[in-house]
């Protein structure tokens, strides 16, 4: 095990009590236990409070634009499959702005970890509804309440054969560390959603609210994460009962292995010699 202090980053700008703090701590713990060195890790983020995560951690970082972390992360993996790549983004970012890339990532199955911090709100822009806000959530833009039901990202992931789907809760640090470790060691796209209370703008979905509802899915007598239909039913559960744990697993070939071009090693720093005469001869 490596010392968790190895990953100490700059001082954070999050609100006191923010669900991101226990996530940061648990993530460092998981990295330390798995002995992933900062130099071998790239964190990719986009826009939102959760996207500041990589700055508060010592590692390689690419903090890009709203909704586009997955394309950047996939590009990094294709250029250098020896790097451990983790995307840390929020619900508004990935489920709203970046929805198309989420669908494509399910299909591609790149070998990376996608962590979505789900606080059911846009916190950085001060409290607007997000794609996962519950129906009826009131904010400045929806004084009558959000008129339609939330997205079910985990059910979507199961329906699209995402190769690993799980959920955890920021209020359960040990569960969180274990889930990070499972996601980080999965080969293929590991999609981990973390319920992450926003203490400033979301007065409904609080630590208390989640604590009353979450249950560990592995305790179910019918637990069958390889069974697609079972996983779909569980992934759709939301409200009085919210499942956490590994919900779906489906081993699939990874994107990187579909490119024979990568068999010779990473593209990173590679400058191939190409036969000009041969290239031109095709046109004579």
């Amino acid at each position: 095990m490596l010392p968790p202090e190895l990953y100490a980053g700059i001082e954070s700008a999050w609100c006191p009590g923010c669900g991101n703090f226990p996530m940061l701590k648990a993530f460092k713990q998981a990295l330390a236990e798995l002995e992933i060195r900062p130099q071998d890790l790239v964190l990719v983020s986009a826009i939102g409070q959760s996207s500041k995560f990589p700055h508060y951690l010592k590692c390689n970082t690419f903090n890009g634009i709203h909704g586009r972390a997955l394309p950047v992360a996939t590009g990094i993996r294709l250029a250098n499959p020896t790097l451990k790549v983790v995307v840390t983004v929020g619900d508004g970012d990935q489920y709203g702005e970046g929805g198309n890339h989420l669908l494509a990532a399910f299909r591609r199955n790149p070998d990376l970890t996608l962590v979505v911090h789900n606080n059911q709100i846009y916190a950085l822009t001060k409290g607007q509804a997000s794609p996962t806000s519950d129906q009826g959530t009131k904010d400045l833009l929806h004084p009558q309440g959000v008129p339609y039901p939330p997205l079910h990202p985990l059910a979507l992931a199961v329906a699209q054969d995402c190769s690993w789907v799980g959920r955890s809760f920021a209020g359960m640090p040990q569960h969180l560390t274990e889930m990070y470790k499972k996601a980080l060691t999965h080969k293929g796209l590991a999609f981990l959603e973390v319920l992450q209370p926003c203490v400033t703008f979301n007065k409904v979905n609080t630590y208390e609210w989640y604590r009353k509802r979450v249950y560990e899915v592995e305790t179910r007598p019918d637990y069958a994460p390889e069974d697609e239909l079972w996983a779909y039913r569980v992934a759709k559960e939301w409200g009085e009962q919210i499942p956490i744990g590994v919900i779906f697993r489906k081993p699939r070939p990874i994107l990187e292995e579909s490119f024979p071009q990568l068999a010779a090693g990473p593209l990173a720093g590679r400058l191939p010699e190409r036969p000009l005469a041969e290239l031109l001869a095709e046109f004579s």
Partner: protein
Amino acid sequence: MPIDLNILIGGAAGQGVHSITTPLARSLVRAGARVVVVQDYQSRIRGGHIFNVLRVSDVPLAGPREGVDLLVALNQETVALHLPELAPGGLLIYDAEQVQEVPPGVPALGLSLEELLPGTQAGEIAVNAGASGAVLGLLELPVAGLAEMLAESFAAKGEEVAGWNRQAATRGWELAQKFPHAVSLAGLTPPPTPWLLMSGHEAVAVGALMAGLTFISGYPMTPWTSLFNAVAQRALKYGVVLEQAEDEICAINMAIGASYAGARAMTGTSGGGFCLMTEAVGLAAMTETPLVVVVAQRPGPSTGLPTRTSQGDLQFVLWAGQDDSPRAVLAPGSPAQGYAVALKAFDLAERYQIPVFILTDQYFADSQHTCRVEDFPARRIPFALETEPAGGVYERYALTESGISPRRLPGFGPELVVADSDEHTPDGHLTEDLRVRVQMHEKRLRKLTALAGEMRGLTTAGDPEAPVVLLCWGSSRGPVSEAVSRLAAQGVAARMVHLSELWPFPREPVLSALEGAKKLVVVEQNASGQLMRLLRQETGLVGTQAVRRYDGRPFTPEYILRGLSGVV
């Protein structure tokens, strides 16, 4: 008098216009002719009217011209649309099963399956092969090479189909013998080193491969797609990872990710696809990630004319993105220049850590030109990376005099590479320290100083003292240079100044090239005069006249000369 022959092959999409053009054009080039092929097609898979024009000569050609000397009509519509263009002494070759009416008095050779391949089920393809054989027959060139090429290109469809093509081409050649041969290419000698027949996008693809391209992502959109395809056909063989993205936003972000991690990366698009990419243009500039972006222009706004040509995105590409950010914009005027520009684009992107744009268009993308191997000199574009160990201490955005900070790749040592789209400190972390903001913004823009010194892509032609100057950029080079030679033949002294590197604007080279100009005519394919505005902004010089085209068709020397009537 040099030989100058225009062959128009027209029909409906799906009738095989393209599949006979290339073997015919290649046979002519192999025989020692100079050929330029221009494609005109519609945004549909079947039907509609499409045509290719092969201009054939025994001397080097700058580009296409107007007029038709030999008309190959695969359907009635082609006869109706193009027969009026047929020059006196011209000949019509037509598919006798598709064309019912040929106006009386027109010298014409009708080809039918019955006459070409009696007793077979060969169908339309026989007529296509027969027509290309007939063209060679009229030009007094041997048909064997063409027959073999056709047989080869249809080999996948079985020996019988390949054989039909071979026979039909030969029979077409024989049938042409009874017509007068107005032009003979029999005196040509094949070049000692074979010449090349290459499109602009193919040349850019070869340039990118020679520059060490290892990653390309894109989304299909005409006319960009032909470049993406040209790389795709060679990707496996030459070790390029190619990914078709779910949209253009993904395409550019994925290329940026790959480049950050150390792949030599490019992306590209057209029109609306580039509108989607613009946010990430700023990202590449802000994170100082090398990136080559091809923007293949077509007429707009919005969807516009998908399969036509335009130079309407110059000002868009110059300024696309948030705030001020460094970039280079290049626009090749020929396949050879497309190759050189691609190499230069990767070199500049690598050394300056900026996005570099290659502006092409449908005409440049698809038209094929006869080139020589010597026009494609080998060049190697090394990486510009910091590789010395720094003991783990490293600032990705260290403030430097040149504005260029030492770049490292993640995973190649203990030094951590922290890249950020937010305004950031030298070590890459987001900041709201406005003093740092000013330092960083100035650092990025300082790159433009040295970059400006690298811009020298200026070509001149014609009488260097002439008071009449035709200023142009990008793909207009060929037609403008021919317009200048035709003016000279009419006794009008004129010269061309062509720019293939537009940003940072090559102010001094342009000022010196324009010295002595009394009439400055800016020739470009957009309605508002985008180069004319750029010239005035950067030099204070005002173009006195303009020739502009924005109907979606490429410039021809004739179009330019018509535009100049009354001016010179």
